[in-house]
């Protein structure tokens, strides 16, 4: 038997070079060793790699221990094939092609070297990064899909899901990813529920959404007057308005001032300009307004116009307003000279020293001896005769055993009756100059003379009532004296907020000129100039720069302005409470 071996190689130009040799016998050895019949120079080939043996018309291949060949495309350690069909053996980079041969004929074998398929594509293009990176286009499409799915489709689904829920469920809603910032502290609870405010898609937040919760809020003024009060629109303002009209955003919405998603903070204090834009020139914008122009507390603010009792309608006090500049007088129906009571010398001071141990007075009376702050310190309790005056101003007129009888305060007819009774019940002891009683005469005449004099004395100059009160003289022949009712407002400034508490560091008399006041009709309120000693406008260099919002509120009510609420009392809306003065005094005494 013969094998015809054809070693095929290629020249540099690609020309085929064939070297043929014949091997007699049935066996062929394959390997890198020079003694092998088929000599392969590839280092990946063992010195003796495999043996090929012909048996009849079959050719079998067997490798040495631990070695492999590629037989007809399969990795094998041994195998065989029919010679008439031919076969293909690969070892490393060599291809040994057994050509089909008839039974008994010579077997031709082509031996050639092939580049390993696909493994070493060494073209110049391999230098580019494209050969090892995924395509940019594919990456771009993938990223587009991910971003749109996660940040657009998912939130829209969150919106639709929320539409199905009656109440926002406490869970992550994907539309939260659209939130441009944390909500203010007041709205923290809504962080999870975009649609509490953004009710409908592509519709700007409406006031209705705000008023769902803020039911008590009211307009600053009539909307039409408000609109007219706006300073003339600049060109830019008109552009802005046109823009808003184009996109169907009504002007003057809550959210124009109350911006959200600005971070988890409190609402910023209202800037002075916010008010002064309209109020600085309000008289020009709204000629019929009763409000004077106000642009800056330090430089452009009208004198205070407190509400005080200007006159009486019968027994009903009538409040009126007047500028403090006009030095208005209050008609309280009380006679009370502050100067006398605060004097460091004289009778009042002496009495204070005498009663000091009982009532905690000092060397002379001071304001707090009669005036008590309300529990929150904002204002003062109404002055009360029994609690605040009676320590000195005794209404005692008799002593029965150990009990002192006093005239009844606030009930003039009872005073008259009590005095009559006092004189009637006394023993008709003969008094010097008294008329002798004749039989048949009732003791009345005798007693009544003293009573009448005493009653008249009480209600007349120098008497207990007259010193403090306006006495209404009785009709001739009658003793039906009456006292005009006394009243004081608890609050003088209804449109502005004043809190005494933060002013505690000041002496009362540095604002209220009580030491120089000789009559209760003096309105002892500090005027604008007095306040301006410390307070200036928002950007003033004053000790206390004060924007409008320190005293006034846009959505004004009886309570403290929102800015102070947020800054001082932890967000709780509040108004001053008047307490029982006696209770307050007891509590204060206990604390001492």
């Amino acid at each position: 038997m013969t094998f015809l071996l054809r070693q095929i190689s290629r020249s540099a130009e690609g020309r085929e070079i064939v070297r043929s040799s014949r091997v007699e016998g049935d066996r062929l050895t394959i390997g890198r060793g020079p003694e092998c019949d088929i000599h392969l120079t590839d280092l990946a080939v063992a010195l003796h790699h495999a043996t090929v043996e012909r048996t009849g018309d079959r050719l079998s291949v067997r490798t040495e221990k631990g070695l492999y060949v590629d037989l007809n495309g399969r990795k094998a350690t041994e195998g065989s094939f029919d010679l008439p069909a031919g076969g293909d053996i690969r070892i490393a980079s060599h291809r040994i092609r057994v050509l089909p041969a008839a039974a008994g004929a010579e077997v031709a074998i082509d031996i050639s070297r092939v580049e390993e398929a696909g493994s070493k594509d060494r073209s110049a293009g391999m230098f580019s990064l494209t050969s090892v990176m995924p395509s940019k286009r594919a990456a771009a499409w993938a990223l587009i899909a991910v971003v749109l799915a996660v940040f657009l489709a998912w939130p829209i689904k969150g919106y639709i899901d929320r539409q199905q829920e009656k109440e926002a469920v406490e869970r992550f809603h994907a539309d939260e990813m659209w939130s441009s910032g944390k909500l203010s502290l007041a709205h923290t609870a809504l962080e999870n529920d975009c649609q509490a405010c953004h009710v409908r898609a592509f519709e700007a937040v409406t006031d209705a959404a705000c008023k769902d919760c803020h039911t008590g809020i009211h307009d600053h003024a009539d909307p039409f007057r408000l609109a007219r009060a706006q300073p003339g629109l600049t060109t830019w303002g008109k552009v802005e308005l046109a823009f808003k009209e184009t996109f169907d955003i009504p002007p003057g919405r809550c959210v124009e001032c109350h911006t959200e998603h600005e971070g988890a903070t409190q609402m910023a204090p209202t800037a002075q300009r916010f008010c002064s834009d309209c109020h600085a020139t309000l008289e020009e914008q709204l000629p019929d307004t009763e409000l004077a122009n106000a642009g800056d507390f330090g430089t452009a603010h009208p004198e205070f116009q407190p509400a005080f009792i200007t006159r009486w309608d019968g027994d009903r006090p009538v409040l009126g307003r007047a500028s403090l500049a006009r030095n208005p007088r209050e008609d309280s129906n009380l006679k009370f000279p502050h100067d006398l009571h605060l004097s460091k010398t004289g009778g009042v001071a002496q009495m204070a020293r005498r009663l000091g141990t009982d009532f905690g007075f000092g060397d002379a009376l001071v304001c707090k001896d009669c005036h008590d702050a309300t529990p929150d310190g904002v204002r003062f309790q109404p002055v009360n005769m029994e609690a605040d005056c009676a320590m000195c101003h005794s209404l005692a007129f008799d002593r029965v055993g150990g009990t002192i009888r006093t005239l009844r305060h606030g009930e003039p007819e009872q005073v008259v009756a009590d005095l009559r009774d006092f004189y009637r019940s006394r023993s008709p002891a003969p008094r010097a100059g008294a008329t002798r009683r004749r039989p048949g005469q009732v003791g009345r005449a005798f007693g009544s003379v003293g009573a009448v004099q005493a009653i008249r004395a009480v209600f007349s100059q120098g008497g207990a009532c007259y010193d403090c009160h306006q006495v209404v003289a009785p009709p001739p022949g009658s003793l039906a004296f009456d006292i005009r009712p006394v009243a004081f407002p608890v609050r003088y400034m209804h449109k502005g907020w004043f809190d005494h508490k933060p002013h505690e560091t000041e002496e009362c008399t540095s604002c209220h000129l009580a030491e120089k006041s000789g009559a209760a009709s003096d309105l002892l309120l500090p005027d604008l100039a007095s306040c301006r000693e410390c307070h200036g406008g928002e950007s003033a260099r004053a000790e206390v720069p004060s924007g409008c919002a320190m005293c006034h509120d846009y959505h004004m009510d009886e309570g403290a302005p929102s800015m102070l609420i947020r800054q001082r009392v932890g967000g709780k809306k509040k108004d001053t409470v008047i307490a029982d003065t006696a209770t307050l005094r007891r509590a204060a005494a206990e604390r001492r």
Partner: protein
Amino acid sequence: MASRGISRTELKDGVSHEGFLRHKRFRWLKITLGLSLLSLLVYAFTDVQPRHNGGSWLGYTLGTIGALLILWLTLLGLRKRAMTSGRWSLKAWTSAHVYLGLSLIVVATLHTGFQFGWNVHTLAYALMMLVIASGVYGISVYATLPQELSDNRAEMTKPQMIDAVAKLDRQLQVAAQPLTVGDTEIVSLSLDDNVFGGGLIRRLSGRYPRCGTARALRELQQRLAVSSGREAEALETVTNLLERKLAALDRIRRQLKLRAMLEVWLYIHVPVTFALIAALTAHIISVFFYW
């Protein structure tokens, strides 16, 4: 070459070449500085209550400018496929692309009003900044690396570099024939090396710790030290060849590293640009959805 676009070279006939950065005496740099300065001034002198944000009139204006700029900048990808000259030459486009792209840093940052959070809006901003940063990197490598690439090639073409290695491989095959089975296996380590086999990290770092040629060289040098006679001669020939192959490989690998550094930024710049456009779409729709 891109490198030619950067430096200003005097050509023989006196026609000066102007790179895209210097195009028309920095025309687009000036426009960019003007736009940025204008934005900064308007931002500084506009009183937005309670603080600057994307929803004020200034915010909308800056946002619109920014979005249009992003779309226009993206169009360079289309424009670059058609090279023309003149006023709207590709060079002019590229110059404008680079400088207006940088102006986005100012315009878009002012648009945010410095309000950032974990949301789609900041996502769009972050993607934009990533694209800009990768672009800045691209400019910087285009300015320096082409020269290095050219130096590294030492007048060789890429196929020549590959051929040099292939030639050495063939010589190794022959030279290794007298070696023992164990030694030939070591030589095979080098022959099996695929110089283009490493991934992105290998290419960028230029470090191939499992390089078969280096390992074969190390081991055969140790063998050489303890061998003698004909074996030593054969080993010496093989180690010399391995040393030369290692040098040839190093040249290719430096080339690969430089090419990778030159190209890698585009794999961020381009796909992230499209991610940015998607995020921008979501940003704009969401703003008006919850208006």
